[in-house]
Each structure stands twice: as C-alpha cells, then as structure tokens.
C-alpha cells in the first residue's frame, strides 16, 4: 500500500498548495471522516428566490472525488480542474433540487459557485463548495426538496429567510443555521447530525421594509464567475492548432472586453475622472492602456503567488486586501481631487465677486505650483502622472478571477506561453473596452459643456471628484466585509 505513496504524496502537496494558510491545524472533520454534508439557505425577497447551497465533504468522500476533479490525471488539482469540477457538481446538485409553488415547479438557475479544499485529518483534505441558485418566486405555498445523494451519511440542513418585500409564514424550518452554514457543527457529545432534506413555507410579497436581500453572489472576488469561467477557462485545455490559437486569442480578447464592462472595474471611476479632468481622447487611450497593463501585471503577480507562495498568501486571502488597497487609492485620489477642485471653485467664485478690478483668472489654479501637471490635475486640468497611476490601480489591481484561472490552468498543463498569450489578449480586450468607455465619457463631457456652459459645467469637476470619493468608500466597505 505504501509504495503508492509518491502519487498520493504529490496529491497531498497539491492539496497543500491550494489550502488556506489560516486554516486550523489538521482536525478531523467534526462529523466524521465519511460524511457528505449539505445545507440549503433559501432567501426570498420581492418575487425572487436565491438558494445558497453548501456542500461539505469530509476526508474520505473528498478523496473519492479527487479523480473526478483531476481530469488530466497528473495528481495535481489545478485551479482550472477545480473550476470544471465545481461547474459540473453545481449543475448536478441543481438537478437534484426541487422547488415548487402550489405544486407548480419553479425554474432555478446557477448564479455562481466556488470550491475550496481545507486540511483535514491524516494529511487529507476536506472539500467545501458553495453555489447560489436563483429564480422567480410567485406567492403561494412553497415546497423545497433536496434529493441529492440520499443514502450518504451526513448533516442535512435547510433554512428559510425573508428579506425586503417578502414575508414567510408557516415555515417547517428555522431561519438561521445551527451549523452556521456547515462551518461550525455543534461540538456536543449529545448532538446527532441534523437530517432535514425539505422545507415547506408560505410566501407572500409583503410591503414590509425588511433588510434588503444580500447580493446573490456577494463580491466578485469571493466567487468565481460561473457562467463565463467554464467557457473561457476551457480554452487552456484545447488542442492547439493555428486556427484554435487565433480563435482562442479572439475569445480571450472578447472576454477581456466583457470583463471591463462588468461591474466594479474602475469603469465608473475612470469615466468620472476623465469627465472631471476635461481630458481629451488621447487621455482616454492612455488610461485604458495603463489599466490593462496594471491588470496584466496583477494577474501575473497573483499567479506567481498562487504558484509559489500560496501557503503564506493564499490567493483567496489576497483578494480582499487588493480590494482594500484599490479602495484606499481611489478614495485618496477622489479626496485629493475634491479638495483641489473645491478650492479652485472657491477661488474662481471669489475672483468673480471681487468686481471688475480683479483680473480674470486665466487658469483655475488656486496657488502657484512647481508642478504644472499636478496642479492642473487637481483643478480639473489635463491628466497627471499620479492620477494616471491611481486610475490604473483602481481599474487593474484587482485581477479577474477568470484570467487567473486561465493562467494557473495553463501552467498546470505546461502551456505557460499559451496561458500568457491568453492573459495578454484578455488585457488587450480590457484596454479596448475601457478606451471606448473613456471616449464616450469625454464626448459626453464636451456635449454637456456646450449645453450648460454657465450652469452645470463648472461644477462638473467637483461632482466627478465626489463620485470618485463615493466609489472609493464603497470599495473599502466591500473589501472590509470580505475580510471580516
């Protein structure tokens, strides 16, 4: 048996590399090495339902899954392989879920999923997957059944919670999880595993102003993008021919562009900055290129960390910190701009009220400066180097998880050059999309300036700086929540 150690040891190393460094030292799975545990958190709000599904596999079932995860059989569970497995498993789970209102089935679709390995007993790992399924939910008597893996031993739990504009009554299950969503099982000699596989409750759209429902998929960094990760990440496993190469680079380019248009990629900040700074087209181009360079560097950096130092800095732990840093830089940029532009506004306003003897200020500079570019920036002039850097950071520091998965997948398949090309193409798409957005912003600004010459236009730099401040604050809060 022990002669089999080399592949197993390799596998354990692979598990180890992917482990979360802050996890506790090897503990037996609290519910036993053989269990597969399942939790469904049903969240209703308005006419919508989201089911937070958690799958927690103890050491042995996690070990049994490893050959299903390790599709290329190299005993290493690469990020791409884990992604494919999670996609397939999430869809498999969905097929075992039943949700109906007054006996009419409700369609659910996979919104996102995430999986990770944690150290378990005997040098083995346990596996945890989270998936979110969403659907439309009409009012009525709701019945939910989880028919997955009916024979396997384990903890099974279902909860139902109502959020904004929804009310739930007559529920057969509680609203909070005894196991904290399978994170903390009651450590009690006298507690047997829960075995709840279904729930019934009455649902009505209420006028109550309850807490708003949480975003189904939380922060983008926390959960990989399920619908796209499969398609794009799959590229790295394709057999390479010139046509495939060209095609896949094109697809990577398009995904990059799509990524730029997705939520929270400094798009808003960039647009606000460009509008406020009275930038020209070439500025939009340089900002787009800077962001995409930063993004490339960031993907490569995080990729290196994931490959060589993930024990110290696991990628999933680095993400919120990068988010925090991004937020801080954006907030700093916004505050600096806001302060400068407010001063400039006051100076301009004061100059006007001083009467005819006061000469019109040729430049909106509040005071002389040794750095013309810098002061021009603060007052709404053309773009500064520091501003450019801040924009690049805000848009590119937080790398797309998809791009990272592609890079790590390519490395695992020994296709480093190919992976790099895909990441570069991805960044190219990102740059082009951002340039287009920037151009639109600049055009919109000149349009606004012409229309409202005296009224709105002078306040535009201040307002845009305010937008940046708000965006920075938002990013910081979001990252703090992820860290907390």
């Amino acid at each position, binding site marked *: *048996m*022990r*002669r*089999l*150690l080399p*592949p*197993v040891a390799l*596998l354990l190393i692979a598990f180890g590399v992917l482990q979360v460094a802050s996890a506790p030292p090897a503990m*037996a*799975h609290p*519910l*036993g*090495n*053989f*269990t597969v545990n399942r939790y469904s958190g049903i969240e209703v709000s308005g006419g919508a339902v989201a089911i937070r599904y958690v799958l927690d596999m103890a*050491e*042995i*079932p996690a*070990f*049994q899954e490893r*050959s299903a995860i390790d599709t290329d*059989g190299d005993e290493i569970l690469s990020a791409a392989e884990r992604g494919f497995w999670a996609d397939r498993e999430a869809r498999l789970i969905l097929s075992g879920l039943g949700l109906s209102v007054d006996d009419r089935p409700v369609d659910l679709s996979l919104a996102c999923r995430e999986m990770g390995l944690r150290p378990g*007993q*005997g*040098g*083995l790992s346990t596996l945890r997957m989270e998936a979110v399924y969403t659907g439309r939910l009409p009012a009525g008597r709701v019945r939910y059944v989880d028919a997955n893996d009916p*024979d*396997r*031993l384990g903890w099974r739990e279902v909860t139902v919670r109502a959020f904004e504009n929804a009310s739930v009554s007559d529920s057969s299950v509680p609203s909070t999880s005894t196991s904290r969503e399978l994170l903390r099982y009651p450590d009690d*000699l*006298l*507690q*047997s595993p829960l075995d709840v596989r279904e729930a019934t409750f009455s649902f009505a759209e209420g006028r109550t102003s309850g807490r708003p429902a949480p975003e189904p998929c939380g922060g983008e960094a926390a959960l990989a993008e399920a619908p796209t990760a499969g398609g794009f990440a799959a590229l790295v496993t394709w057999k390479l021919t010139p046509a495939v190469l060209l095609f896949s680079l094109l697809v990577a380019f398009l995904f990059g562009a799509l990524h730029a248009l997705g939520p929270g990629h400094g798009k808003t900040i960039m647009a606000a900055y460009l509008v406020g700074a009275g930038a020209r087209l070439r500025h939009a181009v340089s900002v787009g290129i800077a962001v995409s360079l930063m993004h490339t560097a960031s993907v490569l950096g995080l990729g290196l960390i994931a490959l060589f130092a993930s024990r110290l800095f696991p990628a999933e732990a680095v993400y919120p910190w990068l988010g925090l840093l991004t937020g801080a830089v954006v907030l700093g940029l916004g505050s600096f701009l806001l302060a400068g532009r407010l001063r400039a506004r006051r100076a301009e306003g004061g100059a006007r009220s001083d009467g005819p003897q006061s000469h019109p200020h040729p430049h909106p500079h509040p005071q002389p400066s040794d750095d013309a570019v810098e002061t021009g920036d603060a007052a709404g002039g053309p773009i500064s180097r520091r501003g450019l850097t801040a924009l690049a950071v805000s848009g590119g520091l937080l790398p797309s998880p998809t791009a990272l998965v592609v890079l790590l997948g390519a490395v695992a398949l020994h296709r480093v050059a190919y992976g790099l090309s895909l990441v570069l193409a991805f960044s190219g798409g990102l740059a082009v999309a951002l340039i287009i957005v920037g151009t639109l912003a600049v055009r919109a600004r000149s349009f606004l300036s012409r229309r409202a010459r005296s009224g709105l236009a002078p306040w535009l730099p201040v307002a845009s700086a305010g937008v940046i401040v708000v965006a920075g604050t938002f990013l910081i809060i979001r990252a703090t929540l992820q860290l907390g």
Partner: protein
Amino acid sequence: MRAAAPALTRPIVDGGSLAQLIADLQARLQAVPDDWESYASLGLAYVQQARITADSSYYPRAEAALERSLSLHASDNVSAMIGLGTLALARHEFDDALAWGERARDTNATVPPVYGVLGDALLELGRYPEAFEALQQMVDLRPDLSSYARASYARELQGDVGGALAIMRQAFQTAASRVDIAWTLHQLGDLYFNSGRLDLAEQEYRRAIAADETFVPAKAGLAKVLAARGHMDAAIDSYAEIVQTYPLPEYVIALADLYTVTGRTSEAEDQFALLEAEETLLRANGVNVDLEFALFSADHRIDLEAGLAAAEGEWARRKSVHVADALAWQLFAHGRFREALRMSEEALRLGTESALFLFHRGMIERALGNDDAARRDLARAIDINPHFSVLWAKDAADTLSGLRS
C-alpha cells in the same frame, strides 16, 4: 472479510433503529445529565454506529461517553466496562479488551455480555480453549442472538460448518428487529458462500435485503456471488455503487481486486489510494489495522517489507489463526517457505475448513517441493469453495492441474 472479525460486526444494540436509540439517549441525557447508565449505552451505541458506517471518528466520541459514565459512577459500572471492552475490540486493542472483560466479570459475573467481550478478546488473541469456554458460559447464561452467533463462529473455526449453520439458524429464530434478521441471514449467506454453495448464499442474501433493504453487507454479498459466477462487470457495478456510499475498506478491497483481475489497473490504483487514505484515518483514530494490511500487502505484492513487519508485530502480540495465516502468506511472498509452512500449520491448527488457509498452505508446500501435500491442500480448498477468492481461485485451479499433469 468475515473471518477476520466475525462476531464483532453484529449489531450489539438489539431492536429499533440505532439512530433512534442514539437520539433517545441524547434527549434523556440532556434532561438528566448525570445518568451514567445512559452514557454507557450511548457510548456503546456510538461504537455500533462506527462499525455500521465504518466511520472511525465515532470511536473518540464513544470513548468520551463511556469515560463520562465511568467518572459519574466508578464502582460496579459493568455497562461502561463492557462498552470500553467493546470499543477496545473495535480498535483491535485485544489486550485492553480482555482486561476490561476480566474487570467486568470480577464486578458482576452474571451479565452475559461480559462473556461476549471476554470471548471475543480471547478469540482474537488466539487463546481458543479459554475463548470457547467463555462463549459456552454466555450461551448457558442467556441463549440469545448474541451468544448463538458467537457459538456458531466457534463451530466454524473448528471446522464444523454444519454445526455453525445449525446454530446460526437458531440465532435467526431469536432475531426480532429488522436489522438483526438481516444480519443473521447475511451470516447464513456467508457460511453458505464460504462452503461453495452459491445458490443458497444468494438466497440468504436476498432474504436479508428483503428484511432490511438498507442492509449493505447483504448487497455486498450479492456482488460477491455475481463475481463468483463470473459476471465481473455486474459485480464491479455493484461494488462501485456500494463504495460510493459506504467506502468500507473491505468493499474497497473487493472492488480493487475485481479491477485488478479484469485488467482495469488505473481504476484499481484509485481504490488502492483510497484504501491508503482510509488506513491513515483509521490509524489516526487509534485503530490497529496491521493484520488487514499484512494480508493486503502480500496479496498485491505491495510494500512487502512493511507488510511482513506488520504481520510479525501482530504475531508477537497475538496468536490467532488469522494472524498466523497472514504471516504465512507474507513469508511465502518473501520466499521464506519453511517458516511460512510452520505458520500455515498454526493457521490450520483448529481444523478450520477455510479454502483460503488451505490454498495458502498448498502454495507454500508446492514451493517446498511437497507436491503430494500441495495437491491435497489445493484440491481440498477448491472442493470447499471454488470461488474462495477473486484474486486466487484461478491460480489455485491452474496450479492444481499443473500438479496433476
């Protein structure tokens, strides 16, 4: 692997479902936290849970519950002593089990399960005369399922398969709960299978499933019958399904063996790796698996050094016929045929009608050039059960026809 730990796999808790019993005990203890008797029963139920599910992490819980019981009530707490003895048996700590059994007997010599713990420990330690005496006392005290099942095993060890079958049928008469009925039917099935009667074995396994459709050992029994009849793919499907839900080492080994003989090497290696992981976990939870490992290692010629060391270590601790057989097979694998033969004689010292033991001795004798003895043993093995092993049955037949020509 019935022969390795026979009476041990029988449900200790008669009647009702184990989960229900555990839930009742937990509720009782939440209301009455110092009820030492319930803690002892809970501990025993956890041992049982671990055995049914092969989830060794229940052992530490069982231990905690039993120790709690003992600390609440130290003197004359026979239940906790029996529980700790049973736990020690389950962890293959047979000296400890014997000590707990003796302590329990000294405390109260009229409780039948005391002799169950004593008898099981003595059997595993290879102290057969004392063991048979303890089991007889148990039957005399209370002729029930627990005592009959052990008496049946004692007959089987001594080569009296007919007697073993008859007593097991008596045990079946006393079985009341569904799981007990299924368990005794499954034991009957194994007795039939081990004596080569496939149709009867299949019939008993099917009856067991009819009694309790969740009774996995009987499903494994049917898979074993499929393999014996040469329906390898169907047998593989059955075992794969069982392993997907209940990956007990014995089922994993059976599946790995089937993959091996059908040439599906990489799938076999997956199962070997799983077995390795389970071995690690069993050891981490304080379970000694040296005997099982030694036999597996010799069968698959994997890690023979460690396998021999494990077998020798086990033989130093206890002199049971199963340990003797595993050590003999290991010594054979190392080419140490004379020592192997001596151990093989030890393995067959009770006259057990085991096709596997006889096959091992026959192969050793052939290696030593004792062709007549080899021919006799191999013929006897095939006569007892031509399907005794997925891995070796064909080798046995081929070697025998080679010796006859």
